[in-house]
């Protein structure tokens, strides 16, 4: 069981993710270079946080065309678990694996703080073990996390139970307090908060552990 962590030029949470998975949860990891065209047989894929390609043009817009992401898209279509965190969530929307877009925070500030989230796990693979309406505390660190989509898409997401994480107190203007979205099948999750920064009590909390542990199940 190995988790692949995709590394783009400008990723900066890739090492944190490997530390959390290996050091805190005992899961094997492998870094996957964005320019490669082979996932190397990994069992789950993480698109980590950071500033892929310097966030040029739009966050995630250039990363979407990385050769490895064709493989990630195929992997996701076949039901493989794919987790996108922060910039990884932005990339998932640009790829079309999740609908909508993440835009500049409403107040323009880069928000870096602990955030309370409400879970509605639905059929999301990564949220197994969390109860409905459970409250989690995970840190956020982003300038462009304001989720937007058209009203029809939003209704479909709500009806399909795909809005699996909502901010208890909206920090960025996200439509419907969206903090994390799942695809309909439940094998793709994008979220702005950073579970890899909440896996060791020394960092202030361990609410991210179960979510990341599910990469290995």
């Amino acid at each position, binding site marked *: 069981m190995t988790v692949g962590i995709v590394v783009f030029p400008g990723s900066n949470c890739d090492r944190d993710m490997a530390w959390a998975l290996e050091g805190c949860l005992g899961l094997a990891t492998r870094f996957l270079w964005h320019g490669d065209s082979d996932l190397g047989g990994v069992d789950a894929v993480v698109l980590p946080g950071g500033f892929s390609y310097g966030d040029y*043009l*739009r966050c995630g*817009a250039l990363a979407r*065309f990385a050769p490895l992401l064709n493989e990630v898209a195929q992997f996701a279509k076949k039901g493989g678990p794919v987790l996108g965190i922060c910039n990884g969530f932005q990339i998932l*929307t*640009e790829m079309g694996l999740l*609908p*909508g*877009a993440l*835009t*500049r*925070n*409403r*107040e*323009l500030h880069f928000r870096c703080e602990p955030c309370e989230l409400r879970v509605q796990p639905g059929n999301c693979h990564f949220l197994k073990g969390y109860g409905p309406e459970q409250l989690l505390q995970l840190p956020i660190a982003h300038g462009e996390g*304001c989720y*937007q*989509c*058209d009203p029809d898409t939003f209704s479909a997401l709500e009806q399909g139970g795909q809005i699996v994480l909502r901010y208890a107190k909206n920090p960025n*203007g996200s439509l419907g307090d969206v903090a994390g979205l799942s695809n309909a099948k439940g094998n793709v999750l994008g979220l702005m908060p950073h579970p890899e920064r909440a896996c060791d009590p020394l960092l202030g909390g361990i609410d991210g552990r179960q979510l990341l542990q599910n990469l290995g199940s």
Partner: protein
Amino acid sequence: MGLINTMHSNGADGSPGCEDLNNCLGRLPRFIARVQVQLRPSVLDPAGEATRAAASRLGVTGLQKLRIGKAVEMELEAGSASDAREQLSLLCDRLLANPVTENWSLELEELTP
């Protein structure tokens, strides 16, 4: 560069003169394209609002609206203006703009050789 036009004689041997210099030289026409990417009217533009607030502090008053977009200038070769438009539309739809939040417009101009 793939050539779609073959070389034509230039009239010195008695054949008709070349009306299209690009064709005569075996080159594809060159175009200059200017794409404007703008946030959709329904999308909040906090950077535009902040800039409007700064404008009033500068003493420029009366600005009712300020929306920030992107301008992209390109030069390209294409077999025709409609080929160029087709390529650029793909580029705008798939890369330069995010259709969820942005609209785009295109100006295309053929460069004279």
